[in-house]
Structure formats: structure tokens, C-alpha cells
């Protein structure tokens, strides 16, 4: 198990390093940030001075190694646009994004698990078609559009929930639905097909024949096994939530990292983009690592294999 964990951690570090190289090169392909920072009539001497001050006059490999050596000590530089330490910006914003992504994941599971399980149990029934429809609807609509619809219905129309912000637990409901609805279809499919396999197995038939109550049989014995593939994919889903949060955060004025990185992209605020992507990669790797470990815990066969 220790070797397995170490191997996964090492792989994760390589992934993060790879992401850092890609984002470093790609941001620099987008153009010169100094052009956006200074007014058009700024003299060329001032432009050169600014480039020098930001270290943008150095060869790209030198810039990268400076960035990397600072980053490992936790120094991601100052935002060009905000003139404040990037780490401070991220530290303030990241928890809100994790909170939103977690709430969205919980919402998606709250729908997909009962949908998947009951669709398998009542295969071909009206509920099966209904669940499929609801799930597909979430996949068919872009999350920013879902967000706007939710605001129109639940904030303006019914006045049940706030339209924006993150002040109270009520504020997370609409953005979590907007973000969490999309993966419901995929998750439902996974649970449904896994449940169908499990419900068809001998131990379930055996349980049913000895009189185990149907509810216990489905939720305690069948679902536990059917959940393994869902757990496997959880890291990917969580990562996709983090990605999707970039847009949803703008719609709901959610004070998260996504909104910060999107705005930084447009402003060519390299340090913020680099650090934002690096942290996103870190979370992606961490989420997958946790899933890998929990997968092993749920399924002893896999743990023993490794």
C-alpha cells in the first residue's frame, strides 16, 4: 500500500510539473501583458522599463526556472493587475471554489444515486424514463444558462433564494445546482448499469430468496458494490466541477478562484493564471489520489492486488 501511495504521489508531482510548463508557455504565447498595463501613449522607454521590472525581458526558460524556484517556496509573485501577492489572492478565493464544487458534487450525487438505483430497480418504468430525462436535461444545457434560468425562476420569480453572493448557506444552493446538474446524466448511467449487474448476481438472488427485505437488499448489499465505479470517477467529477465553476462563479458573483483566473486570463496577468492553473492541477491530482486510495479501501481485491 505504501509503494502504491508513493507511486501515485510521484505521478501526481510529474503531472503538476507538466501543467506548470504548459501554462507557462501558453500564457506567454498570448502576447505582451505590458501593452495592456500601460496607456497607449506611454513612451517606449517606460514600456521597456516595465518589462524589465516584471522580468519579461529574460529568456523564457530563465523566467520559468525563476518562477519554479520561487513557487516551491510558496512565492508565486505579485499580480500584475492587482499588485498584491498571488498567494494571498488564491488563499482568499480557493476555499470558496472548493466549497462550491463540493456542494455541486453533493447535489449531483443526491440526484444521480437515487436516479441510478431506482432506474435499475424499476427498469423500463416511467420513473426510469423520467430520471433519464431530468439527467439528460442537465447535460444538454450549458451551466451558465442554467444559472441564469435558476436566477429568473427562484430569485426573481419565486423569491425563494438569493440571486448572487456567498454570505449564507442559502447562497450556495443555486450555483451548486447550476454546476452540479451537468454530471448527473453520466453518474446516473454509471450507477444504473452497475446496479443492473449487481441486481442480477447470485448473492442478491440468494438474499431475496432467504427473505432479506427489498430495501435492505438494494441499498445495503447491492448499492455498496454498485458504488465502486462511481467512486472511481469521483475525482474526475470533482475536477470537472472546479473547471465548470469558472463560469458559474461569474454568473452568481461567487467570490472564487475561477472568476479570478478568467479575469486574469483576459488581462494577461501571468502570475495569477500560472498559480491558478497550478492550484487547479494540484486539486485535480489530490482528488484523484484520494479516490484511488478510497477505491482500494472499498474494494479489498484491488488493495490486495497492489
Amino acid at each position: 500500500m505504501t509503494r502504491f501511495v508513493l507511486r501515485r504521489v510521484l505521478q501526481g508531482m510529474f503531472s503538476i510539473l507538466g501543467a506548470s510548463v504548459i501554462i507557462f508557455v501558453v500564457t506567454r504565447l498570448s502576447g505582451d501583458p505590458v501593452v495592456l498595463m500601460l496607456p497607449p501613449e506611454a513612451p517606449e522607454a517606460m514600456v521597456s522599463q516595465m518589462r524589465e521590472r516584471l522580468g519579461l525581458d529574460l529568456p523564457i526558460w530563465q523566467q520559468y526556472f525563476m518562477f519554479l524556484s520561487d513557487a516551491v517556496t510558496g512565492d508565486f509573485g505579485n499580480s500584475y493587475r492587482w499588485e498584491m501577492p498571488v498567494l494571498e489572492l488564491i488563499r482568499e478565493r480557493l476555499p470558496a471554489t472548493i466549497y462550491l464544487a463540493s456542494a455541486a458534487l453533493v447535489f449531483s450525487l443526491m440526484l444521480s444515486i437515487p436516479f441510478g438505483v431506482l432506474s435499475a430497480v424499476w427498469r423500463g418504468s416511467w420513473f426510469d424514463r423520467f430520471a433519464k430525462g431530468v439527467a439528460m436535461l442537465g447535460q444538454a444545457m450549458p451551466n451558465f444558462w442554467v444559472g441564469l434560468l435558476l436566477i429568473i425562476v427562484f430569485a426573481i420569480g419565486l423569491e425563494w433564494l438569493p440571486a448572487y453572493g456567498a454570505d449564507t448557506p442559502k447562497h450556495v444552493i443555486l450555483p451548486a445546482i447550476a454546476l452540479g446538474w451537468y454530471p448527473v446524466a453520466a453518474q446516473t448511467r454509471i450507477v444504473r448499469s452497475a446496479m443492473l449487474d449487481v441486481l442480477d448476481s447470485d448473492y442478491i438472488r440468494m438474499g431475496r430468496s432467504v427473505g432479506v427485505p427489498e430495501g435492505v437488499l438494494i441499498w445495503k448489499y447491492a448499492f455498496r458494490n454498485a458504488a465502486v465505479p462511481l467512486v472511481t470517477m469521483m475525482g474526475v467529477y470533482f475536477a470537472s466541477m472546479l473547471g465548470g465553476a469558472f463560469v458559474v462563479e461569474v454568473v452568481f458573483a461567487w467570490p472564487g478562484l475561477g472568476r479570478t483566473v478568467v479575469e486574469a486570463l483576459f488581462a494577461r496577468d501571468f502570475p495569477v493564471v500560472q498559480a491558478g492553473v497550478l492550484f487547479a492541477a494540484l486539486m485535480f491530482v489530490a482528488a484523484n489520489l484520494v479516490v484511488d486510495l478510497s477505491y482500494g479501501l472499498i474494494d479489498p481485491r484491488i488493495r490486495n492486488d497492489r
Partner: protein
Amino acid sequence: MSRIRMGAGAIALTCALLGSVAGPVTAEQTGQLTVALAAESTTMDPAKYSAGVDQYFIGTMFEMLVKPMPDGTVQNWLAEDWSIDDSNPDKPIIDVHIRPGVTFHNGDPLTSEDFRFSYERQADPNVSRWSHLQANVEEFEIVDDLHFRLHFSKPDAAYIANYLQLWAMPKKYFEQVGEEGFGQHPVGTGPWKFNSRKVKEELRLEAYDGYWNKDHHPTVKDLVIKIIPEDLTRVAALKTGEVDWIDNVPPAMLEDVKSQPNVATAAMPSGNNLFLDMDTIPEGPLQNVKVRQAIAYGIDMDAIIETVLFGQGIRYAEVSKDGTGYDPDLKPYPYDPAKAMQLMAEAGYPQGFDIDCYNLITPREPNMKEMGEAMYAYLGTIGVRCKVINLEYGAWINLGRRDEKTDQLNGGLLSWMWGQSIPADPTIAWGGHLHSYEPGKGWGSYSHVNDPEFDKMIEDASGEMNQDKRVAKLKEIAKRKHELVLGGLTTYQPLVTMAWNDTKVDYTPWPYPGFWRNFQEIGLKTQN
């Protein structure tokens, strides 16, 4: 000694408006209002001012020597009086008397030392991104606590056009807390004092009860500025009562917002003046004045504004109605496709020509992308066949700049804009996009024109610090520019609309979008 006293009438009016003796605000301020802006400042340190958006927060807490008023006039503000001494016309002096009795939010009195400190920070390229605007000030002379002189190495009209461009910053406080401390907890002389800020979320301000201006001040105690970038969400927040005031109502939603009960709206021209820039390189068709005029006659701007912008735009000819150098005799080109076709034929293009037309797709002004597309579509009907190339903001800025290291227009058309506050003064803008490109000298940094006559006229106007004489010179430039359609075809000024809960909010709109977001005069209606 020839001495030009600026704004003598304005001073009298200011005294009447502001009261002859400055003193703290006397009316009791209570309650709280919540407003929502689409964008927020990146800094709260005036010396680090980067773009127009920074005015939103800075202007609530900090003030300058003069200020544009709601009626569009520029009045003395922290300056009680100022004048230009041009006894040596090559080296003019601006002589400033500061208004007595003004204090910073921490209680320190405002003195000449504070302005010198401000000048030094604003002139330092390691601090300010606009340090070049202070380049012609060769000496800052303090006469006494409330009297200072700016000695110029050469005439500089831009200094006046930029509202004497010195923000009042507290030297003593800054030295106590340092640059970082000042940025985190700014202290100015403005109507609002800093309370707290969460970046990208909110700014909390409190009315400064020691504020000097008894006639123009907030009557509500607390102001919460929320940042809601998404248009629909911002409008929704107003409808649900979560906020009391919003800016940037999108044109498509304006009718809906206006139809809401108890909602008041006000529209103001945006600080940006939009135009269609034309690259007049010798080998391109746009070097021919008849082609440029054909383009001017070939676009039905009124129809485009009405349909694409839902009427939220104003046409202008070279200088906007409230701008310096505005000439009421100068009218925008009318839509006349027959004349446009005739001019095309006379120019030697009866069959038309193909051309690259660049368009900004990043939201900057409402529906700007669609406005560009519509203009280019109209041009197709007179034979100017556009290959529309869409650009995001960074690429668009790059293309506009005459930097050899970046892509160039190469004879194409570009939907572009200039912004120089309101009242707009085109002196600086024309130096950028009408004067020939002279690398390293600051002229023509984004110009696609090469016309020695204009160069002379612009340099002359830029050195004219006498307002009346400068207005006359700007009118001459505008007239010639309009006839030759050079430095771009002026198209429209977008209107920006703000909306508020009329039963709750007592609000006086101030001009220029930057200033109306400073909430100089806002309060709870029930109090009045």
C-alpha cells in the same frame, strides 16, 4: 507679467455651490445602502491608477484639485483658486491655492506638502503607470502650506485636460503605514472613508463626517459596493431588492428595467468615443479621401444605434457635445448610399474592393461586437467587402498600437475608441491617433495617419494652455479631420444606464461614468 486666471466665473459659482467657508458636514448621516457595480478597481492607491475602472473606488475616497460637476462644467474642488503664469510662454507655471479647512479621514489637514508627495509618487515610473503625464513638470515649488506652484519645462495642455492630475494623498499617514498599509487602508479627503474590502466581492465605506463640502455629500452613513459582473444577475439583484442601485444596465434589458415599479434610471454617455479607424498606407485604398468619405456616407449609424444598441448611443462628429473643441456646425455624415457609390466610382473602385476589417469581441462597451459587424455589413453594400476578423481584447490593443513588434493593420479597418473623460478633451487622444507615428517621442502611438499639417496643428494645440485659444485650435483640427475623414470616422458614444430603487434611494447622477460611481451625493429617500 501676463497672468491667465482660470475659471474666475467658475470660482464664483463654486463658492455659491459649495458655501464660502469649508467646514465639516453637519447633517446627521444614518442608514445603509447597497449598490452593485459590474467591475471593480484593481487598486485603491491613486498613484497606482491603471485604467478608468480604478476611478470607481479611488474617486469615492480621494479628490483632485478640480472636478467635473453634474452640469458638465469643470469646477475648482480642492483648489480654491488656480491660475497660469505664462510670462515666460516657453516655461509656464501653474499657481495653485488649496482650499483651507480640508482634512484627511484621519484628521490630518491637507497641505501643499501632501500635493508635492502626490506629485513625486505620480511622477515615479516605479510607482505610477502614468508617470509620463508628469514629465513636463520640472519643479514643484511650495510657497506655503496652502499655496504651491508647478513649473513646466514646456507648455502642457494635457495637464489641464486631465483635471490638473494630482490626487490629494496624505504624506504623513503614508509614511506611517507604508505603501502596502496605505493600499490596504487608504485615507483621502473624499466624501467616503474606507471601512473594509474583500477583493472581487465588496467594498464597505462610511460617510466621512468631517467632509469639507457641505453642499455635495452623501446623506447615508454606510455604503456597501458589491461586485456583480454578470448583467442579468445584477439586474436580478435590483429586482429582488438585494441591492438598491446598479450600474451598466444592458441595452437589451433596459425596457424591462424601466417597466419595473419604483425603479428610476439615468443614462450618461460612456467615457469612450468610438470610431472606425482607417489605415492610410500608400498602397491601400483608404489613402484615397473619396474612399474614406464613401465609407462615412455608406453606414447608417442611426439605424444601427436604434436596432443593435436599442437606441443606447449618441452620434458625434469628432468631439462630443460636452467636449472641449465641440463645434455645433460640424454634423455627422448622413447615410447616403448613392453618394457613397458615386465616390467609390470617382476614386477608381466602381467594382469595390476586398479589405480586412478588425472587430473587438471582448465585452468592453455594450454590444460593441455586434455594432462592428453591422457597420461592416453596411460597407458591403457600397462595395467595401469586409473580411471580418474578430479579436479578443489583448490582440485588439496590440493591433491598435504602432509597435513594430506587433501585428499591424496593413491598410485595413479597425473598430476602435478613444476615451478622455467627460467633458472630453481630444488633445491627448489626437496626439495618439491623428499625429504621425514618431517612435520614442510619444506621438502617434496608435496612429495610421501621416499628415505633416495635422502634426503641426496638434503639436500647437497640445502646447496651448490657454483654454479659449486651445478650443479654437481644436475646432480647426476637428473641421479638417472631419472633411478628410482622417484619424478615423467618428461613429457614436455608448450610453451607460444606471438604475435604482426610487422609493428608497435619493441619488444625484454626476457626469462621466467614473464619477457617478463615486457616489458624491446619495442617501436614503425617507430622510429627505
